[in-house]
């Protein structure tokens, strides 16, 4: 059985987990086994809705204390539930929580693990999955040698697939281990699309010359329904908040569309965005290295081009 860990934040199921479930369902289909979902904590959604993405069954350990991650507690629970259910493949989303617990769960299950996976396993000769390495600059095809396999898949690498399976929810009755950490404060970024979950991202660099010029970028993001991001020099100069910094040392993202405005495309920046499906670069320097990594490029003054692009997006919406 393939068991997919369903992650939540603020009692809402993460899109990355639905993608992990779609992926788990595809593996289950290939191996001719069932796919089941595991939810810890309380969530607002009706859990039978997980059937949409393929879950044949949902196992639910309903306990509010599990809503925020305690690696030790979550690891012990996931590992013992997986053991009880005889799961042979475990799938996690490679998001904040998934990357924190998946390797620990693998250790507890004596299972081989590959994180940062971006393809379905190849089972013609063993069980081989592909992962991104060297910050997206290459792929490694890795064989998992153990009977139980653990996979953490990169966000936005597989997509959502609808299966519309009928599903039942089973409550798990299990004692919750004592907490190992105590959450004392939560600071939320309100009203923004989280960067890691965004399909569309508009990003600005030093070429925008100062924080006062971000209006044109925000207008474009609003017209597209995109999240906003920035390069390292921009967040280092406090023009934009640190959580917007994408790149090697910031957040790594893989949206469907990444629009880079006034960013030259240093290798460290590309490491954070090179898994994007489509890259648009707007830069006045035709020699900017970013154009080499781009699908579409516009050479010119961002202050003229971006408002025109926004107008074109809005026009396309109404026609």
């Amino acid at each position, binding site marked *: 059985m393939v068991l997919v860990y369903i992650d939540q*934040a603020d009692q809402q199921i993460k899109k990355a987990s639905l993608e992990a479930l779609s992926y788990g369902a595809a593996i289950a289909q290939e191996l001719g086994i069932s796919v089941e979902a595991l939810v810890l904590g309380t969530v607002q959604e009706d859990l039978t809705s997980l059937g949409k993405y393929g879950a044949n069954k949902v196992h639910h350990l309903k306990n509010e204390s599990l809503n925020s991650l305690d690696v030790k507690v979550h*690891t012990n629970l996931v590992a013992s539930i997986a053991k009880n259910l005889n799961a042979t493949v475990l799938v996690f989303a490679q998001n904040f929580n998934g990357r924190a617990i998946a390797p620990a769960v693998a*250790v507890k299950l004596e299972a081989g693990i590959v994180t940062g996976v971006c393809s379905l396993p190849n089972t013609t000769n063993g069980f081989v999955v592909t992962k*991104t390495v060297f910050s997206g600059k290459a792929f490694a095809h890795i*064989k998992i040698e153990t009977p139980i396999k653990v996979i953490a898949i990169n966000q936005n690498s597989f997509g959502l697939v609808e299966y519309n399976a009928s599903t039942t929810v089973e409550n798990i009755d299990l004692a919750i281990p004592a907490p190992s950490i105590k959450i004392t404060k939560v600071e939320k970024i309100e009203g923004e699309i989280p960067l890691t979950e965004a399909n569309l991202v508009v990003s600005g660099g030093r070429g925008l010359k100062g924080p006062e010029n971000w209006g044109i970028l925000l207008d474009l993001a609003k017209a597209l329904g995109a999240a906003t991001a920035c390069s390292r020099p921009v967040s280092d100069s406090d023009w934009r908040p640190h*959580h917007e910094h994408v790149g090697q040392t910031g957040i790594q993202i893989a949206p469907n569309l990444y629009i880079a405005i006034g960013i030259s495309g240093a290798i460290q920046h590309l490491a954070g965005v090179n898994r994007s499906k489509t890259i648009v670069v707007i830069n006045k320097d035709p020699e900017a290295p970013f154009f080499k990594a781009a699908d579409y*490029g516009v050479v010119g003054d961002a202050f003229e081009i971006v408002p025109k692009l926004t107008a074109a*997006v809005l026009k396309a919406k109404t026609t």
Partner: protein
Amino acid sequence: MKILVCISKTPDTTAKIAFVEGNTKFDETAVQWIINPYDEWYALVRAIELKEKDPATIIHLVTVGGVDAEPIIRKALALGGDEAIRIDCNSNDSFTVANQIAAVAKEGAYDLIFTGKETIDFNSASIGSMLSALLDLPFISLATHFELNGNTASVKREIESGEETAEVNLPVIVSCQKGVAEQRIPNMRGIMAARSKPLKVLTAIETKASTSINHFDLPPAKSGVKLIDPENMDELVRLLKEEAKVI
């Protein structure tokens, strides 16, 4: 206070990525090696800051690798730390590496174990999490801020919708990223001192790898950028809609 900092050797961020031996090995020709930036800039520097506050603190650095990892661990010692341990083991399997470090950690009875959030070569982000299972210790990942108050640590970590602060009793394992500390440049005194700091070499313990590398490959080359007339943004929108199908 005893701190263990995990150090990994990685190719420089600008290194050319290529493979040899039938695409089964990373091509190390002309590659510059560095301390994995997350290990150096955040994990190690924060440990050094804690020692500056409390000089009784002992910092051990641990790396899993061959003799060729020694210049890197010496570089780390030049920044700070009292002694280094190299476990003589060459492996690309996270579980094998974590097991080696766990053996050292058990022996040393550390109050704090710091790792970087991931290495920039394999990007697996697995060691801290695996150590937590192997040592049965709490683990806080993606820390952006770390403070010690006696036997308790207050750690800010990144979560999906922002940040949260957790309090945890030592011992604890923490994976560090931007925010925890600021990059430092080693000074001459540090470099000189590093030469005489002890570097212990340990034989690897026996473990069975749970994964193996089949082969590597490079992403297909981009077909080349399509340049759009800056006066014709309608065309760009059309292409994004009809050709790329992303909006």
